Structure formats: structure tokens, C-alpha cells
């Protein structure tokens, strides 16, 4: 019925159809692997490097510490991603108190009691660059962590205590809270 050539043609045809079917099934689906990437910057950290220290105070005699007083100004060190924008907020006390809370002493912060230094400098008495003598109750916008090559910003804080004439003798203290967060800029 079929000669040799016919049989070969039929064989090849079957092979072709089988191949075609396989090709179809293989090529009917395709998969690609993409990716999602992100570079996370360093987390923020803030350290109280030095307390705001008024030292010995006498009844009825107000005492000020300037923000450029290397030995007495409050110093906070903020570290994070160099050049990143941050928002900061200071919660300042209205009085200092004895450990038992028996007596209180007024403390005031003036509108120029804070200096923010975004250079390598860590010394309150040697301001580099940043924001000089600003209001600690209303920090400026546009704050950054250092610069492109400096990954810290320093806060230097001064203040003034106002002991009353009958202020109880003893050690007084109050909390200064600094809150800082990246703002995404």
C-alpha cells in the first residue's frame, strides 16, 4: 500500500506534528524575574553628650549658661544618614525640682539659647556652620544630619535658672527631651 518513501514521509510528518505540539506547549508560557530594590539609610540615634549644668546657684540670684559654654552647655549628638533631612523638637522643663519634689526652681529658655552645628565640630565654643542662636522652642525647618560627608549634627543648649530668695538648698534637676525623626527629604 505504501512504498518506503511514503512511510518515511509519514514518519517525519508524525515527528513534525509531535514537535510542533511540544513547541506550542513549551512556548505558551513565559516567566520573567524582576526585582524590587531599596537602600535603607542609617537609623537615627541621639545621645545626651553633656547635661546642661548650672553648677552652684545662690538664692535670689539668676544664673545663665550660654550655648557656647563648652563646659556647661547641654550637648546632644544626633547621628544618622549624612545629608538627610530631619525634624527635631525639644521638650523643655519649666522648672527644676529636688529629688523628692519638695521644692522647685524656675528655669527659662530664651529665643536664642540653642545652636545647631552640622559640621564636624563637637565643641560649643567653636561653632562651625548650621543654625546659630535659634529658639529651642521653635526649631528651624530644613535641619539636616551633618552634610554629605558628616553623619552627625550637634545641639548646644543654654538656659537660665531663677532661684527664689527662699529657694531650698539642695540639688535640682529636670528633664530635657529631644525628639528627632527623618522627614524623608
Amino acid at each position: 500500500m505504501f512504498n518506503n518513501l511514503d512511510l518515511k514521509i509519514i514518519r517525519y510528518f508524525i515527528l513534525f506534528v509531535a514537535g510542533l505540539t511540544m513547541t506550542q506547549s513549551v512556548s505558551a508560557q513565559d516567566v520573567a524575574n524582576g526585582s524590587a530594590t531599596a537602600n535603607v539609610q542609617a537609623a537615627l540615634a541621639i545621645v545626651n553628650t553633656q547635661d546642661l549644668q548650672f553648677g552652684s546657684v545662690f538664692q535670689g540670684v539668676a544664673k545663665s549658661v550660654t550655648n557656647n559654654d563648652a563646659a556647661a552647655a547641654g550637648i546632644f549628638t544626633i547621628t544618622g544618614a549624612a545629608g538627610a533631612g530631619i525634624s527635631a523638637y525639644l521638650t523643655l522643663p519649666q522648672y527644676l525640682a529636688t529629688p523628692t519634689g519638695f521644692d522647685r526652681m524656675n528655669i527659662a529658655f530664651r529665643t536664642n539659647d540653642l545652636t545647631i552645628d552640622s559640621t564636624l565640630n563637637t565643641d560649643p565654643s567653636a561653632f562651625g556652620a548650621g543654625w546659630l542662636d535659634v529658639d529651642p522652642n521653635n526649631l528651624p525647618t530644613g535641619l539636616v544630619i551633618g552634610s554629605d560627608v558628616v553623619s552627625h549634627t550637634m545641639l548646644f543648649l543654654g538656659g537660665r535658672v531663677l532661684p527664689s530668695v527662699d529657694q531650698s538648698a539642695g540639688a535640682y534637676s529636670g528633664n530635657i527631651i529631644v525628639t528627632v525623626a527623618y522627614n524623608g527629604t
Partner: protein
Amino acid sequence: MKNTLKIVLFCLLVLSTNLFAQNVTVNNNLTFGTVYPGIPKTISKTTAGFAAEFYISGIAGNEITIDFALPTYMNIGSSNMQVIFQETDCAIDTSATPDQSNPEFNNLDPWHTLTYRIGSNGLYVWLGGILVPGLSQNEGSYSTNIVITVTYTGN
């Protein structure tokens, strides 16, 4: 004669491969860039250069299904960071002049199978997402895979 026949059949096989070939390629990865701990970051599907872009080529008019295998975290070492894909984070354009900023089919759900027909200029898929780094997220370059599977429906 035998050799000629073989060559013809081989060519037909190759041709058939081309006829049914389809490809999905990654034109752009989903790129969040610089991210700060505690600050979520959103990449819109319509933001060129940052949104993921996939290109599907094939026979115009053929119907395909598109399925994503989406991650829920990005990683670096043992550190994870949450990544979210919302029900509107995908867009498709099958037109002759695809426009990522104003795609033909917008706000599609990448979590479900998408069924469309390949256009004369192929089919473009764009994908955005939201990254949610923790406040103390470890520093570093995070990444994860996004797998897209394209299948002909035969319609």
C-alpha cells in the same frame, strides 16, 4: 530527497517555534532608591524609571493571562522590610502608543490574574508599591524578587 525532507521539516519546526513564541522581559525593576528608617515610601506605577516595567511581546490579538508572584518583604541578610502591593498598584497598556503616565488600563489588582490581549505594539505592564521601613530598620541595600508569568489562553 531524505535530507531535503529533513531540512524542510526542521525549518517548519523552527518556524512553528517563532509562530508561537512569546516573551516577557523586564524593562525596569521596582526601584525605591533611598529610604529612611520609619518613613514609608510609595512608588507609583505611573512613575517612569522607578516603577517596575515589563514588556510582553507576541502575536497581536492573542489573549494572555498575567500572574504575579509578589513578595511581602525585602531582605538583606536576616533583616526584613515590609513591602506592600495594593489592589490598584498595576497598570497595563496594549495600545500602539503606550503611555505610562496615562495607561490604557489603570488601577489593576496585581494579586489577581489579569487577562488582556496583546496589542500591535506588544503589551506593557507597570507595577508600583509601598515600602514600610521600621524605625530601627537596619541600614543596607534590600532586594527581593517579583515573578511575572504570562500564559496564552488560546483565545
